């Protein structure tokens, strides 16, 4: 790469990071507003997460006496950096992933665990029993949802591969060839099941009710984050916001990759803007059904119920989806549909 290319890449990365933080905070604001309206409240203004973050950034950073200081302070940085980093590998609107050439969906899957691991490290380093329990629960949760997540990733990529698309794990090819378009009716059902599974994993990834056992306000008083304050807490909040956007972007990229500009002819810049707005709209819709509606309509799961939910129910459902996809590949040529 020439220095100019590197500079351009860096500029893109900086812009995307800003977009990750601002977009994430905006999405959390919309989530809070929608949840409030469903509960017959007015709720905070949509800009509230921005106000909160700015305020937190100005507050004192308290490190508890029996914490491990370097780990305690490093964890939020790692969480924030890794959450933002994921977005570089995911297509946003009509922009192809900036670092798409260097990583695929499997890398995204692994990068998504890094913020969670940082949270666990920070929780153990806090030296509080609540944070310790929270960290244990976060680990268990992570192990629980990792398997259904892998099922979804492999299922989608395998189907694309079976349809003869090269680099099926690369997000460019996934976004360029919507998985719905390569499947027959059986496969459509299978893809829909995988979408439901991925949506069901989202609340656990974002530690939202009903899968927020690691933070569980009424049980652990904030669990993992109980000892964090000031700038460190702000970084975790920002990481959480970025992760919200990232997860929405993953679901959008894998299942709803269509762009407005491919349907309507528009001049370049306008098309970009329209696509971005359309992307945000899709993200809001995805998050509404995957996170907001779920979190207001359910009670919190116990940790053992959470594990059995993911390992037993979701895994079985996900495998059923894969079986449908396989049946689709077998039946496709016979029925003359699909590829």
């Amino acid at each position: 790469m020439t220095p100019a290319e590197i500079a351009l890449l860096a500029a893109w990365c900086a812009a995307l990071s800003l977009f990750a933080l601002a977009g994430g905070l905006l999405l959390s604001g919309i989530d809070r507003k929608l949840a409030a309206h469903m509960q017959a409240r007015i709720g905070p203004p949509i800009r509230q997460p921005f106000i909160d973050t700015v305020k937190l950034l100005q507050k004192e950073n308290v490190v508890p006496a029996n914490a491990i200081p370097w780990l305690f302070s490093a964890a939020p940085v790692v969480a924030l950096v890794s959450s933002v980093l994921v977005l570089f590998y995911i297509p946003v609107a009509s922009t192809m992933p900036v670092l798409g050439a260097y990583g695929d969906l499997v890398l995204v899957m692994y990068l998504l665990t890094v913020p969670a691991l940082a949270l666990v490290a920070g929780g153990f380093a806090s030296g509080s029993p609540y944070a310790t329990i929270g960290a244990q629960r976060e680990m268990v949760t992570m192990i629980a949802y990792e398997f259904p997540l892998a099922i979804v990733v492999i299922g989608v990529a395998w189907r694309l591969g079976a349809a003869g698309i090269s680099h099926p794990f690369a997000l460019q090819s996934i976004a360029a060839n919507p998985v719905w378009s390569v499947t027959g009716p059986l496969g459509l059902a299978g893809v829909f099941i995988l979408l439901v599974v991925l949506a069901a994993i989202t609340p656990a990834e974002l530690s939202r009710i009903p899968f927020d056992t690691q933070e569980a306000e009424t049980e652990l008083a904030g669990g993992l984050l109980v000892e964090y304050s000031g700038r460190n807490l702000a970084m975790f909040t920002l990481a959480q916001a970025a992760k919200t956007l990232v997860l929405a972007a993953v679901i959008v990229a894998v299942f709803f990759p269509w762009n407005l500009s491919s349907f309507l002819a528009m001049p370049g810049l306008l098309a970009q803007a329209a696509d971005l707005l359309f992307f945000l709209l899709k993200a809001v819709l995805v998050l509404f059904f995957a996170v907001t509606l779920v979190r207001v309509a359910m009670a919190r799961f116990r940790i053992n119920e959470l594990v059995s939910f993911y390992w037993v129910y979701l895994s079985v459902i996900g495998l059923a989806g894969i079986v449908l996809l396989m049946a689709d590949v077998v039946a496709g040529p016979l029925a003359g549909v699909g590829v």
Partner: protein
Amino acid sequence: MSGESKKAPYRVPIGPNHPALKEPVMFTFEMEGEVVRDVDFAPGQAHRGIEWMGMRRNPVQIVHLTDRICGICGVVHSLSFSLAVEQIAGIEVPERADYIRTIVHEFERIQSHLLWAGVAAHELGFDSLLYLTWRVREEAMDVIENLTGNRVNYGIVQVGGVRRDIVPEQHAIIEKCLATYEGLLDTLLSFFLDDRTIRMRCRDVGVLSRKDAVELCTVGPTARASGVNVDLRQDYPYAAYGDLDVKAVLPDRYLGETHGDVYDRIVVRLLEVGQSCQIIRQCLSEMPAGPITAEEKLVKLLATCKKATGEGIGRVEAPRGECLHYVRMEGKDSPASWKVKASSYSNLMSWIPMLRGSQIADIPIIVASIDPCLSCTDRVAIVQDNRRSILTKDDLHRLSAEKTRRLQG
């Protein structure tokens, strides 16, 4: 995991301030993984010395102090204090006053149970249900405000009767509120009882066996949910309950079986909301005309109370169970002794069998399931030189013997 016994138990403190607790109490849990092995708790964090204040005031003033013992059962404490004083001074309460007392008392039960249901939902992480029940609860609060002049500290009961009459225009308001609740009750029952996640979190959680419930002297919905047929309104009727047909609400009458778990406690409390509506309706239709107080002139009432000597006990079925006031008057302005035993006092010990063996996640809902009211319960705190000390059984026995001797003179 095979090394179950090798795992070092660790301690988790919860309280006195914790988001799970709406009232200050200090728990220490000995945990094994996520499971509670043992539990100890220390109440007495909210002692305010109300009885001490009462000893320096006359009964007319104390009635308003009793209103403030609890933020939710305003009428319970004042009613039970008044019953005790009326017993000592030989005051006959007019019938109409008894009916008005009953009506306000039952409205209080409605709002208290709905408040509890909301808190229970919140402890489960189900905030939508909290907002919904508390919104519904406002209907009862509005009626109470209309009847008594205030939402929380009603100040409607006074020794000898009540301070405000229910006028015909208010019948319509009460009727409207009752109709709302009767229409909503099935929906509320369905929201709580048909919800898979609530069922999963509450069924067979925090089980209190019938035997434990009896042995630990639990009262109110906590006892009834374990299948113990106790209800002061049916067993020792006071106010207008003698004329009414009140039967204790037991979970097996609705579900056909008794588990004695958190789920059953939800059932009992929600059904009691419906029962209270029926009682209020019956009271409204049967309420006789007449005076609302035995002594309209407060100055005369003060004189009667001053002359009274003797001791009296007022017992009332509070939303949380039996509430008891003991008063002793010795011909002075203020009582010689006043003792409050709130309903939660009898229920606290049931925490220990309920919590043992449960998971961390169940602690909030189990603690909340007896609807603890610590500010009602905390009648004593021993602080010397800024240090708290714990009284053993022997200490307590010695102190009680001393106090009895002192009271006997």
